[in-house]
């Protein structure tokens, strides 16, 4: 469904991704793990079109999207839940969700979009209770749910999630991850999940990639990575456990 081939990304003279190749098959949850500054966010932004790679290609659902604009990519069914949530803080929860549907806004879509917003409220009841509140007043976990809900409003087939657990208490993290799993079951969604919280991510993932200073250094079945000595030593320390 998604394939990266030999992707290089540069910020000026700094190279943040080196010859990265990876793929995500339909229906999979794939975890991309790695420490601070490994290049995880860079890769997600490259996939969603916010950053242009210097070489290499990104293919989504059979089409080369390497040089497409973010607007075009989201309209093709690929949504990116950015690092740090980036909800529109002064706008209401309802408006944030509505804006999530911007890419499919056409005349006569109003009712379908309303229905989808209610579906998000069913999925995350707390968002429904706070629909008229400014998004900035929500707690971190609620903002994460909103950011995910907003991305779902574009009706994606593939969801990119950048560190959804960042700054959240373990029980909230667990709740978010449970939602990710159920999204695949209920919507048939494919997920590429970036996490520093490697153990939780690998527990719900089918496969995983380990990124270090811009390179993929390991890949395999999630269970194998969980059992891998090097991975355990580097990424599965007790302090990261949730």
């Amino acid at each position, binding site marked *: 469904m998604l394939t990266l081939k030999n992707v290089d990304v540069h910020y000026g003279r700094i190279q943040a991704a080196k010859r990265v190749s990876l793929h995500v098959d339909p229906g999979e949850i794939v975890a991309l793990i790695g420490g601070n500054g490994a290049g995880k966010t860079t890769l997600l932004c490259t996939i969603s079109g916010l950053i242009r790679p210097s070489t290499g290609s990104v293919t989504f659902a059979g089409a080369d999207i390497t040089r497409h604009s973010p*607007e075009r990519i989201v309209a093709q069914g690929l949504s990116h839940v*950015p690092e740090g949530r*980036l909800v529109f803080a002064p706008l209401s929860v309802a408006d944030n969700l509505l804006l999530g549907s911007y890419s499919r806004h056409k005349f006569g879509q109003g009712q379908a979009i309303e229905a989808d917003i209610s579906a998000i409220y069913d999925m995350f009841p707390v968002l429904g209770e706070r629909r008229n509140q400014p998004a900035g007043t929500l707690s971190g976990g609620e903002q994460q749910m909103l950011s995910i809900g907003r991305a779902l409003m574009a009706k994606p087939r593939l969801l990119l999630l950048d560190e959804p657990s960042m700054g959240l208490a373990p029980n909230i993290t667990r709740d978010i991850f449970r939602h990710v799993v159920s999204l695949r079951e209920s919507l048939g969604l494919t997920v590429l999940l970036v996490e520093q919280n490697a153990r939780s991510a690998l527990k719900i993932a089918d496969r995983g990639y380990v990124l270090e200073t811009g390179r993929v250094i390991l890949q395999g079945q999630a269970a194998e990575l969980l059992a891998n000595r090097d991975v355990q030593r580097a990424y599965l320390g007790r302090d990261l456990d949730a």
Partner: protein
Amino acid sequence: MNISSLLQYLISGLTTGSTYGLAALGFTIIFNSTGIINFAQGEFVMLGGMFSVFFMKWFGLPIAWAVLLAALATMIAGALIERLAIRPVKGASPINLVIVTIGVSIFIRGLAMLVWGKDTYALPAFSGDKPIAVLGAAMMPQSLWVLGVSLAMLAALKAFFSHTIQGKAMLACSFDRKAASLMGIGVERMVLLSFMISALIGAVGGAILAPITLTSFDVGVLLGLKGFAACILGGLGNPFGAALGGLVLGVLESLGAGYLSSAYKDAFAFILLLALLFVRPQGLFGRKSVKRV
């Protein structure tokens, strides 16, 4: 102090203040979508008045059509400025972009002088010059037009931002550009739209004021500066604060000119602005800080 002269000053203050307010709104809308102060905003106000005058003259149009067409023409000018001067230097630092807008304003003013000369022109009042007596003060029917049209513009803008998806998308761009593009919002298109809306608002302000204050190729300088003062007064980034800032500025200026000295009329705005910035740097109605990413 007698009531009727006070009322007279209030009326004239609110009238010019409305135009400052509309110019300030224009500043705010572009600031919100781009993070830059568009110093060509005053030229939009000038173009609105001058186009109206000349569309009447050249094509013999009735005034309503002339004003409408002038607003459209200025909107196109706004779009051209964005496409030809702002977009090509995309990614430049805000200070460079601001300098670009100053260049644009000088260019437009020069062009206007070449085409229309240095004369002062008057637009006829929309519905006659017969003053209406209000408690001993005389109110020109044009003042009613100015107040009414300004209020209508404000209401339309409010509706645009709170009830349409394009309006909300424009706000979203100002809050978080990256997230907005991830929603599929074309940030560049929103910037273009913001220039067009600002031009439209400025032009309408210029056209409705022209019968009262006359117009010439260089009225944009002062009106632009006053609009800028109003938008700082109201709190940069807050459209309705900006409009209110314009009214406050207009009224204070008119009171100052009436009761103190009319020689310093134009200085009041800036003295007031400086004083306010010392006391309340975020403006009268502003948020504590304007954070931009």
